[in-house]
């Protein structure tokens, strides 16, 4: 028998299917042996349902569904497998023909790239087709690596740069979405002023431990070594359909940042009304090539954007929050230590629903 009530967080995570495999097994083993625990879980679920239903009933604004539908449609259009798994395209003969043509092109591209001597799994923007195919059925090893990564709770500490950063230290770098051109064209047609980044799929090579840590002097971020050649070229600001406030961090007066534990590996979610940003922020490698230096100047961003979130995107397309920084008035330099930039992780810096920076390995 269970003497103490189950932790509500654990029960919720179980009900939501968020527990990791090992934790879920442990929880279910307890459930199987403990009738009181089963009863408590049921009480929690039904009580929570009743509590939720006690709220005054409101009608959601009409545009809410419009925004949801638009976001889902974009996901559908840009999913790697979505158009092929769905049978709706069979309804139109021209679409069938187009689909076959695309498939042939993809195949030829894959053959061409494999013949060019590309190593299997090597991250290369030119090899997207090959990589996408490989990601259709990721190996068990890859899945395991992703699960192990989710179990790693990054420790976070952030400090704010008090000095005014010189203009030269802000290397104007945005990001290059690692998508196929056809997909990007579709997105542009859907929303010409927007560009979408999500679901970049790359192989994982082992587990990474990521942490946000020290403030770096502007001189270091401005050093030639810091400006890695494989950073994406500067682009106009772009907007993504994802933003996430999961696992936010809060900074106290001493500059210590606390990372909320709990949900990890959730993909960022949509912030549809975020304004575009004309960014001159920077994101670069450190001298050793192990860390990622993120420099953000709040003065260049629209007001009231809310906290900045930094995301790591893994091969599964899942985006894990590295940390969150609440913007003040001073520039912020964040060093993402052990970012393992020789690997395949991508990083995105998102403020107020808008990606202001991105790092994508070549």
């Amino acid at each position, binding site marked *: 028998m269970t003497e*103490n*009530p189950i932790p*509500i967080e654990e029960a*919720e995570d*179980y*009900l*939501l*299917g*968020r527990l990791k495999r090992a934790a879920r097994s442990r929880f279910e083993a307890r459930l199987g042996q403990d009738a009181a625990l089963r009863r408590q879980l049921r*009480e*929690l*679920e*039904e*009580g*929570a*349902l*009743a*509590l*939720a*239903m*006690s*709220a*005054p*009933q*409101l*009608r*959601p*604004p009409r545009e*809410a*569904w419009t*925004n*949801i*539908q638009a*976001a*889902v*449609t974009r*996901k*559908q259009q840009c999913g790697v497998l*979505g158009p092929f*798994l769905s049978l709706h395209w069979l309804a139109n003969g021209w679409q069938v023909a187009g689909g076959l043509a695309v498939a042939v092109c993809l195949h030829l591209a894959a053959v061409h790239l494999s013949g060019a001597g590309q190593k299997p799994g090597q991250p290369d923007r030119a090899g997207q087709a090959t990589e996408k195919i490989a990601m259709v059925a990721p190996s068990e090893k890859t899945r395991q690596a992703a699960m192990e990564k989710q179990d790693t709770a990054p420790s976070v500490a952030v400090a704010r740069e008090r000095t005014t950063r010189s203009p030269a230290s802000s290397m104007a770098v945005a990001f290059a979405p690692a998508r196929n051109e056809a997909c990007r064209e579709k997105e542009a047609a859907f929303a010409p002023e927007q560009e979408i980044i999500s679901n970049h799929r790359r192989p994982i090579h082992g587990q990474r431990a990521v942490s946000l840590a020290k403030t770096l002097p502007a001189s270091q971020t401005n050093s030639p070594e810091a400006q890695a050649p494989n950073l994406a070229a500067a682009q106009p600001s772009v907007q993504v*359909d994802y933003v*996430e*406030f*999961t*696992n*936010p961090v*809060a900074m106290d007066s001493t500059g210590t940042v*606390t990372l*909320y534990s709990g*949900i990890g590996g*959730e*993909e960022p*979610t*949509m*912030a*549809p*009304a975020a304004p575009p940003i004309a960014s001159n922020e920077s994101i670069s490698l450190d001298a050793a090539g192990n860390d990622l230096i993120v420099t953000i100047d709040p003065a260049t961003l629209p007001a009231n954007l*809310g*906290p900045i979130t930094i995301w790591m995107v893994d091969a599964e397309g899942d985006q894990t929050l590295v940390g*969150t920084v609440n913007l003040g008035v001073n520039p912020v330099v964040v060093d993402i230590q052990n970012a393992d930039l020789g690997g395949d992780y991508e990083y995105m810096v998102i403020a107020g629903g808008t990606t202001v920076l991105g790092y994508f390995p070549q």
Partner: protein
Amino acid sequence: MRPRAEASAVTPDDVEAREDARLLHAIAGGDEHALATLYHRRGGLVFSFLTRMLGQEAEAQEALQDTFIRLWRRAKDFDASRSSATAWLLLFARGLALDRLRARSRHVAKLSAYETEVAALEAGWSGAGRSQAPADELAGSCRAALNQLPAEQRHALELAFFRGWTHEEIATTQGEALGTVKARIRRGLLALRKTMKDYCD
């Protein structure tokens, strides 16, 4: 086997719950129409719930959108053997709303913060100026049951559920033993659960 007897035991709420579960499974399979149907059925409930949690309709709308957009990819996590579809959906939305609450600011477990939150929760009942939907009988029963709880119990329950306060934080601000707070919350949940069961029966 007595299929007729079994069939007669199925309540309308069971049918509703099964339909929600069916829709979630269809969404997991990439059915956009299922997502639209689920939104049509439960969007109002989720929005009302999120507004109660976040206190602002604009932010609740964003959270509502987040919920259903995420649902598109996360519906596969739903397991009917673990929970009902509606409860799963609401807990799913609650998790996103709690993230937003945490992102606003990290509350400090002090009496003043407790009183502020309780006052905000009390004010949230009015729904003044909002586009209220026709009153739902079950929702009214649940609200009445909640209001019948002793104030300390109701506040503890609401702070824990709508604001994400931990039992420890509530106990600290109230100067109560942790066990007392846990027991209050559990009794409150039981009372609400009984209301729902009575209504469904």
